Structure formats: C-alpha cells, structure tokens
C-alpha cells in the first residue's frame, strides 16, 4: 500500500512540476466568458507568493513554474494530511471507549 501511495505522490509531482509546463496558455472557459462579457478586470484582494503558478524571483522561465507547481503539490499534500489526521483524532477523542466507532462502517 505504501508503494502505491508513494507512486501516486510521484505522479502528482511529475504532473504539477513537469507536465503542467506544457499546459495550454489559452484562457479557460470562465476567463474567456468574462472577457466576452467585458468583465475581466479584477484585482485580487490578497497578494500571493506565487501568482499564476510562478515564483517571481526565479529568472529561468521553466524553473519558476516547475518549482511553484511542485511546492503547491506538496502544500496540498501537507494540508490534507494534517486536516485528515486532526479529524481522525477529534473523532477518536469524542468516541473514547467505543472502539467500534472508529472502524470502517
């Protein structure tokens, strides 16, 4: 099972930090629609460290995208595992003594 999870993670990193460099540059369906409707002027409410999936301080145009994509992939991995683990713990604490509750239903 461990090797399957590791395999999926390596695939995710290859897609996020590699294949994504070949992604179509065309606007997506919503961006295209907003442009058609003349509603494509928007200012983000926050400043993100990697806007548009690029790290601004890196000069190389491939590296700035690849590292941003791989970092995001790892950030999602970390966040979901942290959240999943917290949910598991919260449930284990609330159903202490009821061992069957934590079993797969």
């Amino acid at each position, binding site marked *: 099972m461990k090797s399957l999870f590791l395999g999926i993670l390596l695939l*995710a990193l290859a897609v996020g930090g590699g294949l994504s460099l070949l992604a179509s540059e065309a606007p997506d369906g919503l961006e295209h629609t907003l442009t058609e409707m003349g509603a494509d002027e928007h200012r983000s409410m926050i400043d993100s460290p990697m806007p548009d999936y690029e790290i601004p301080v890196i000069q190389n145009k491939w590296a700035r995208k690849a590292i941003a994509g791989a970092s995001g992939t790892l950030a999602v*991995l970390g966040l979901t595992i942290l*959240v999943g683990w917290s949910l598991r713990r919260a449930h284990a604490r609330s159903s202490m003594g009821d061992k069957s509750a934590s079993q797969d239903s």
Partner: protein
Amino acid sequence: MHLPDGSLSIPVWASADALALGALTWASSKASKKLTDRQVPLMGVLGAFVFAAQMVNFPIPGGTSGHLIGAVLLTVILGPGVSSVVMFCVFLVQALLFQDGGITALGANFINMGLMGTILGWVIFRSISGKSTGLRMYIAIFLAAWCSVELGSLLTGLELWMSGTAPLVPVVVAMGSVHALIGIGEGLISIAAVRFLYAARPELLEGRR
C-alpha cells in the same frame, strides 16, 4: 473555472461563503466518522494529484482551454464527506498561495467545483452505478463527471448574473457550451484515475460502499 475577487457582488459571495461554511462543517463531521487510518495518506496523495492535474489546461476548440476539477474521481474513491474536505484544501491552497480563485469567492468556487462533484456528482454516480464494478460503474463515473462540470458552470453563470457582472442568457450559454466540451475531458480523466486505482487496490474504493 475559478472565480476571481470582484467578479461576484458582496451579497452573492457572502451568501455563498456562508453556505460553503455550513457544508464544510457537515462534510468534516461526516469525514471524521468515516475516515480510516489508511485513508489519511490516501486523501493526501489524491489531493496532491488533483491539485497538480488542475494545473494542466488542455485546449478546447474555440480558443479556450479547460482542466480537470477532480471532485467526482475523489468522491468515487473517498466518499462525499472526505472528498469535500479534500477539495476545500485544494481551493484554499490555490487562493492563498497562487491567487487562483479569489479569497472572497472561495465559498462560491467550493460550491461550483467542489460540492457539485462531491455531492451532486456522488448522487448521480450512485444512482446510475448501483452495485456494478464493471462497465456500468465507468458510465456512471463519466456521466457524474460531465454533469458536475456542466451544472457547475451553469451555476457559476447564474452567480455572475445575480452579481450584475453579466447578462443572464449570454453568460449561461457561453459557460454551458464551453464546459459541455471540458466535461468530456473530466469524464475521461476520472474514468482513467478510478480504473487505475481499482486495478491496483479494489478495496480502496470507499465511495462504492
């Protein structure tokens, strides 16, 4: 299909955020009851995969592009509660680190792309697939994936209209026609992903139970 800040009016994004918060609370409580130890690393690597795959825009005829959303493939594997939590994590990272989707529109994006797949897509999947693990299951995955993208895009169009950003008929027609094509990509990638996991570890398909 990530709505940026400023594309929705305050009443629309605020009510979407409130609705999303309620749904997320429900999903978290459902997920905490269903989660097994083995599912925690699985939700991690699948969340990472969905995030990565969302970066890969494929070209669509007519000068636009689309990308996988991934909510249906997650809900088939992890069930509606856990997959909703994972989708929220993906949208949160996208909004905070990458400015992909506005922070005010986070709730709307979670509803349009997350819940439309993890809840509505799950209902469509379950009602079509029954107990099948064969062809019928894959047809169910395709239809659930296609419907989640198409209906999510129509809902996005409605929100833009309610916000006064775009006129009703043109925005719904524009969103619906592009995403009818993008939905085909969603369906095919979802089938491939579930088929791969089912071949490797059939017992992992929690959404089948």
